[in-house]
């Protein structure tokens, strides 16, 4: 378990380095990935936020899209056994370190080990994600041209690598491809940032399909 948690945290750290670097190279101030990685502590939504705002999207609208990505934390909280996130003031921190990884480890551990696994992974990610983002941001501040060295291809590649395991499910894949097609078709006509939000039409379609089944 300890070895698995260490490996997961290292992987999170690597994604964080690319996130910090890409954010700064796309023109964000150095503090943004550093502060955001501590306060939000949810990777995909932060990548979505920086990616869409860098493309010219309105930060408030984009934050709402990020919240949709993070809504999965509600069922996470429902799934965790009571007490795993701690009690009293500890629960303030225990709540903040709820993420994909810590929840998976807590749910796969036995009843006694769940709390230990949750906190070990949660705190590990709390160090690895902001730490990696800070290193990446500093590395990124040396580079000034996004298109130099093909760095502009790194951002979509990072997100694709993260999302790919979820696309092995047929229904999800169909919805994702439909959403991507809608977004691409909208690019010439709607303001920057909006095409990705329009992709949500595909979720409505997927919901109807689920209902019909």
């Amino acid at each position: 378990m300890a070895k698995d948690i260490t490996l997961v945290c290292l992987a999170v750290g690597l994604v964080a380095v690319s996130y910090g670097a890409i954010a700064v190279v796309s023109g964000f101030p150095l503090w943004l990935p550093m502060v955001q990685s501590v306060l939000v502590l949810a990777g995909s939504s932060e990548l979505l936020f920086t990616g869409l705002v860098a493309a010219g999207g309105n930060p408030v609208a984009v934050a709402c899209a990020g919240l949709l990505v993070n809504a999965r934390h509600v069922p996470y909280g429902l799934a965790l056994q009571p007490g795993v996130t701690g009690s009293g003031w500890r629960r303030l921190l225990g709540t903040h370190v709820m993420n994909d990884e810590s929840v998976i480890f807590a749910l796969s551990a036995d009843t006694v080990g769940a709390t230990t696994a949750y906190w070990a992974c949660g705190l590990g990610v709390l160090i690895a994600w902001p730490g990696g983002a800070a290193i990446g941001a500093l590395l990124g501040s040396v580079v000034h041209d996004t298109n130099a060295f093909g760095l502009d291809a790194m951002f979509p590649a990072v997100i694709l690598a993260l999302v790919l395991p979820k696309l092995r499910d047929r229904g999800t894949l169909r919805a994702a491809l439909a959403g991507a097609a809608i977004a691409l078709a909208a690019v010439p006509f709607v303001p920057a940032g909006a095409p990705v939000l329009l992709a949500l039409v595909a979720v409505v379609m997927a919901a109807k399909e689920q209902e019909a089944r």
Partner: protein
Amino acid sequence: MKDNGLLITGMVILSVGTYGFRLAGQLLRARMRFPPRAVRLLETAAVVLLTALVAVTAFTQGHGFAGYARPAGVAVAGLLAWRKAPFVVVVLAAAVTTALIRLG
């Protein structure tokens, strides 16, 4: 993006809202059950948004086509990720492929 105030507002909305979600599930646990269909739909929504972000950032720049070099790099990365190559290899392959095509 130059407007720091708007940037901070967005960041605060995302941070506070995410913390709220993290807390909400725990507080609701005693009182309700989340239908599995809703959980699946939330998951699908997240994947759809992120995949659309991949497509838009890979293929477009502003309101037009980004050129062939970038989507080619992302495609190579996707193929490597599909074959379960290590993350570092996937990301570097995207950058190197795109850079090499631009040289040619």
